[in-house]
């Protein structure tokens, strides 16, 4: 492999053949790094993740332009289970566990990447999440939000991914649990040598763990850089961290041309 682990070039995704959700995104995820996609609701973050993992096919959407390159191989519009078999696993945003199965069965139900040591992996899940090990016999439908998120990450780990895509880790969780989970993910990433691509709305948390971040708005990347650089950026402070001028604002309140000038110019 010569290039980055994952590379998107001018990716365009169209829903129901009419609605363009992602308009020419290009980004790179180097091996072993943590890359974060930031952006407000409807910016196209989730769609980008679903395009990579092949999920958009289920929502009647397609990659119409551009390329997704993983380990120097093209992989647009592949079915999800094939993408998982190649080493990319998605932890979806909402509904992410099998509620009718017990915790242990949830972990056993996954199909690991060919060549991976399934026994060792499911064992590792219990080591990384001792809280889950105590709940092994519990039906997943009875788990709390944080426990579900742990289980979802555990199931994804059991797939033996090289690239883990996590959609909105912080959604609906207490800030303390989010920090704990992110810390755990960092440890796992280092131990297993994984690469992470996270989608987050919570910029403060995301920039803490990221090696590199992209900011999406209206299906386009408007800004990218290291966390240090982004934290200093006036717009990020104002619209994403809420530490700018004191009053909270949305970028939507600001006229498009002013921001464009400031960002591109």
């Amino acid at each position, binding site marked *: 492999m010569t290039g980055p682990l994952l590379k998107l070039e001018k990716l365009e995704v169209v829903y129901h053949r009419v609605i363009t959700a992602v308009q020419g995104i290009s980004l790179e995820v180097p091996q072993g790094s943590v890359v974060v996609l930031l952006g407000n609701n409807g910016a196209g973050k989730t769609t980008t993740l679903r395009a990579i993992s092949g999920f958009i096919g*289920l929502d009647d959407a397609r990659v119409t332009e551009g390329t997704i390159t993983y380990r120097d191989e093209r992989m647009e519009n592949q079915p999800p*289970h094939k993408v998982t078999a190649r080493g990319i696993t998605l932890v979806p945003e909402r509904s992410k*566990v*099998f509620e009718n199965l017990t915790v242990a069965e949830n972990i056993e139900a996954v*199909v690991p990447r060919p060549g991976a040591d399934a026994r060792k992996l499911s064992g590792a899940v219990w080591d990384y999440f001792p809280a889950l090990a105590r709940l092994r*016999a519990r039906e997943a439908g009875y788990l709390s939000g944080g426990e579900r998120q742990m289980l979802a990450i555990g199931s994804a780990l059991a*797939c033996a991914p090289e690239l883990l895509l996590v959609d909105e880790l912080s959604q609906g969780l207490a800030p303390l649990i989010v920090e704990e989970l992110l810390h755990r993910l960092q440890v796992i990433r280092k131990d297993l040598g994984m690469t992470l691509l996270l989608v987050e709305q919570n910029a403060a948390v995301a920039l803490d763990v990221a090696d590199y971040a992209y900011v999406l708005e209206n299906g386009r990347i408007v800004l990218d850089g290291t966390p240090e650089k982004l934290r200093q950026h006036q717009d990020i402070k104002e619209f994403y961290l809420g530490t700018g001028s004191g009053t909270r604002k949305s970028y939507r309140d600001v006229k498009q041309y002013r921001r464009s000038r400031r960002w591109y110019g």
Partner: protein
Amino acid sequence: MSGYFRTRYERDFALVDTRTQKVWLAIFGIVLLALPLLAGPFLLDLANQVLLVSIGAIALMLLTGYAGQISLGHAGLLAAGAFTTGILAKEFGAPFWVTLPASAVVGAAIGLLFGLPSLRLRGLYLAVSTLALHFIVIHAGQEYETRRGLSSGVVVDPPSLAGWSLQDPRAWYFVLLAGSVATVLFSLNLLRSKTGRAWRAIHGREAVAEALGINVHWAKLSAFVVSCTITSIAGCLFAYYRGFVSAEAFSLFLTIQYVATVIIGGIGSILGALLGTVFVVLFPYAIEALMNALGLADRMASMIFAVNYAAFGLAMILFLVAEPQGLVGIWRRVQAWFLLWPFKQKPVGK
């Protein structure tokens, strides 16, 4: 108080967990084996019916209760197995050892064909597409009957196993018991395998199953093929047990009875399928006995079928409203009550 702890992760997936369970299972096994020696002909026929229906009910439970795919074609599948057996025996004089695998192959082929719509359709739409299966098979069976001039059905001679003709209800009991036990063991083990977990996973959340590397198309098709194969085998046994095959025996009501078995027993449980079978098979007899006891039987003799249907429908509604977990839910509560005695506590989860 009973307190016990699992010491290894593997124990979570054991079929028989505790010593108490083993003891009860052994006692139950002995009762099952001793039953034909103690029971009269009527009771034995009832037992045989329960065993026969249980095979089909477990097959439907695998498909609907575990894989979450609706099928209204079950009577049609039983008919497919029965007609395959009837036609092969009648036209070619085929023995049991040919008709049984042949029925299985026909069932698997139908399962593959009628599993295909499930890749695109869900819920009610899938139910309607499987209903087509029912009418196609029944129509084909009727066509065969009229063409061959067999207006009263195809007569099937009793099968012979190793030179031993199966006519005695007692002998049938053991054959059907073996069939039923084999189906239970096969299903329980299948459900603990990758395939079974994939079925339950797509029942839970199809999209998540895809995300975790499960081939959803394959899982759905395999569920249809396995369920239809077992049902078709049950149809073959049905043909031999009854001694004749007629399209009229496989009405839409039979399909509804099988669906009722699964619902009344409790979705997502093999034990539920068995409990549901006992309930559904014995229910008409219970209604009849009740009417006799009330002295209504003579006056309402012409309406006995209507009363049966109505009572059956009522029972189903009551179960859906009052006990959505079915008989197995009641069973679990009773079990929990004994486990926790003398403490009063409501069970959580299983």
